């Protein structure tokens, strides 16, 4: 055993030193400055990571003398905040670092930004899809936060469901998610919207994937229960699930048993569909219109025409790549960090031809408009033969939803 231990140690040291030396030969860095990009891993949120890969493709990785330093946060980021924070702060250790983009801005990001700003006030901090309370992330020194418009979408998703012929709206979630202010508020808005638009609303509990049953147990539960839910609520039921992992089995069962799916929590053609349908997208890599086309034909082939929706471009992908591009523009002096138009230009680069809507965040108790948080959303695309866009972004969301407070 002693020998074994020594051998293991020597082997590890040798390999590390070997690899380490090898990499050093790659020559001095050429980029004038670096941009740090933090995303989830492929098993946690594929879209965000693909956006970072797109940035690397365009501007090169720091390791090879390029501009982008990409790191990922752990899959169980909630229980490993120490790692999350120190990973983000470690980016500020690079003297050439000029901007940090975190997508999704999981809990811990606000604290990390505070530390980065304390250390190097010149580094621009951008967050995509903040999980923390809006006021917390806004007060962290973040230069700009871009989130999905959970207020408007609370209404527009229900509206879209009605357009697709839904009579009932079912919201699937679990306690931990409902302890997010954003999700809890969105559900309250959805309930109200259902009432106003004449839909029935219902809440279904799913197991928490971070609990002892894990993602397999949670997914299995959805697999089993979806047919029963469809039977219970009828085929004209729209389902909405707050967890991305659970969306996949949900879609799969809905394709077989019926039901309406407007869009995922963080919509993308890559979200759920390729896994649920087993689609090969190798040839379409990076080309979202083509990916959408392929997903659509698969959905239609399964008889899902007119019942399944998504955003035409991946939200997570656009956010990572778009904010990264925006950061670069700001550093280059081509954009101002407080200009919405400049942000939209940067994001638009990755969503040619798509229609967006966005606005600054307004707090529902003080009425104060945040200067550094933007909420955005996109038209819902309904797959079918032919598919069509629902004019979601053109909807005027009734006044009262913005100040609506969830009741018990």
């Amino acid at each position, binding site marked *: 055993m002693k020998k074994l231990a020594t051998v293991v140690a020597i082997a590890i040291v040798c390999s590390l030193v070997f690899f380490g030396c090898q990499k050093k030969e790659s020559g001095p860095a050429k980029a004038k400055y670096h941009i740090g990009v933090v995303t989830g891993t492929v098993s946690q949120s594929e879209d965000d990571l693909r956006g970072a890969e797109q940035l690397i493709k365009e501007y090169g990785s720091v390791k090879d003398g390029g501009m982008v330093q990409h790191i990922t946060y752990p899959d169980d980021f909630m*229980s490993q905040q120490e790692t999350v924070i120190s990973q983000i702060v470690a980016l500020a250790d690079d003297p050439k670092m000029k901007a940090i983009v975190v997508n999704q801005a999981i809990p811990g990001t606000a604290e990390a930004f505070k530390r980065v700003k304390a250390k190097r006030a010149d580094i621009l901090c951008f967050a995509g899809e903040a999980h923390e309370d809006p006021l917390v992330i806004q007060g962290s020194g973040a230069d700009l936060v871009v989130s999905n418009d959970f207020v408007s979408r609370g209404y527009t998703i229900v509206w879209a469901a009605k357009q697709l012929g839904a009579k009932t709206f079912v919201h699937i979630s679990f306690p931990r998610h409902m*302890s997010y202010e954003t999700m809890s508020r969105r559900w309250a808005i959805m309930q109200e919207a259902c009432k106003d638009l004449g839909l029935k609303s219902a809440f279904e509990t799913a197991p928490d994937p971070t609990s002892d049953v894990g993602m397999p147990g949670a997914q299995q539960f959805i697999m089993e229960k979806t047919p029963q839910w469809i039977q219970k609520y009828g085929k004209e039921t729209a389902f909405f699930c707050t967890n991305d992992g659970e969306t996949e089995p949900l879609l799969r069962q809905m394709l077989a048993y019926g039901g309406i799916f407007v869009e995922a929590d963080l919509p993308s053609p890559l979200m759920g569909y390729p896994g649920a349908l087993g689609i090969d997208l190798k040839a379409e890599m990076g080309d979202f219109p083509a990916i959408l086309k392929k997903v659509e034909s698969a959905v239609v082939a399964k008889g899902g025409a007119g019942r399944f929706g998504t955003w035409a471009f991946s939200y997570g992908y656009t956010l990572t790549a778009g904010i990264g591009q925006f950061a670069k523009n700001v550093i280059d002096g081509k954009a101002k960090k407080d200009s919405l138009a400049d942000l939209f230009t940067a994001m638009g680069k990755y969503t040619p031809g798509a229609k967006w809507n966005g606005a600054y965040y307004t707090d529902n108790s003080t009425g104060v408009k945040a200067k550094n948080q933007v909420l955005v959303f996109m038209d819902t695309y309904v797959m079918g033969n032919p598919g069509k866009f629902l004019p979601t972004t053109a909807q005027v969301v009734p006044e009262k939803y913005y100040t609506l407070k969830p009741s018990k």
Partner: protein
Amino acid sequence: MSGKKSLGRFFTENAVVIIFLALTIAAIPPSGLSFQYIIQEMITRLGRNTFLVLALLLPIFAGMGLNFGMTLGAMSGQIGLILAINWNIGGVEGLLFAALVGTPISVLMGYICGAVLNKAKGREMVTGYILAFFINGVYQFVVLYMMGSIFPIKNPAIVLSRGYGIRNTLNLENVRQSLDDLLMLKVGGFLIPVATFLIIGLLCVFVVWFKKTKLGQDMRAVGHDMTVAEAAGVPVDRTRIIAIIISTVLASFGQIIFLQNMGNMATYNAHDQTSFFAVAAILVGGASVKKASIPNVIIGVILLHVLYVVTPRAGQNLFGSAMIGEYFRQFIGYGVIALTLVLYAWKARQGAARAREGLRGGNSATAAAGTAAADTAKGGAK
């Protein structure tokens, strides 16, 4: 004994530390991080984590293995913090308030944990592990459903707007780094939280003193051999419960120190990995399930955390993918714990073998250690 043999022995005894040191040193260059950053990060993390890891010492003395039940203490500390935030109590006073509130809760939790572990002698570690899951359910029930509905929580910043339940992430702005900032020294470009280190120092003194008290001696006797201790009139079950209670209370303080440095708290997950990281640290520091000391704790915290800081970036630069870097870090984390435990268990058997030789030579000290180890070896199998 020849010199060669003792050198070999040194290697075996410190195998874990040596492997770890080698791994860490090898991983620093490819990570591309500056020494300045690594050292500062180390100082911060030492202040943040050491207290929690020290909480593991007493149960090890009492022969109860690694206290995975310390998670219970962490949850108690968090409840204290939630209340401090609720009433807007800030600064060091806020932390002290949280600690005071956390104390009775953690004593109760420690008592429950100790009583349960007494019924599961020989499999304390697994039981503690599951117990943490169980109490986590209770914690969720209390914090997510009772707070705001049964216990009045008035601060709108922490309660969900549906009226009950605490928000997913709490901003600890009021107490953020108040202990660290109490006495922050800047030495050669490094920030040193002196007050935090003083508290850790105090705890170390306490541990050293405690070992010498009657109770401390009893604990070691129980840890050595329960039957012998029982025969000698030591109240075994009671001593074990006290060890766990102290450990739980310390864990609650430790979690408060940890969170004040972190600046925010994941209400439902902050405690999940507490015991895992603490256990990993103490093992990496060369401790075993049966034997641990203060140096083990400090060396362990430093080594484990340097590795954690360095490996993701190193893995990423070596394999050329950010994801692999992250998985690599976790693999190393778990793998090292497994390796340590294996090495320890293997060493214990070696010790037993050596003791048999020693018996012939009349070396009673090693013999006793050997029998104890052999007993443990049997313990789980019965």
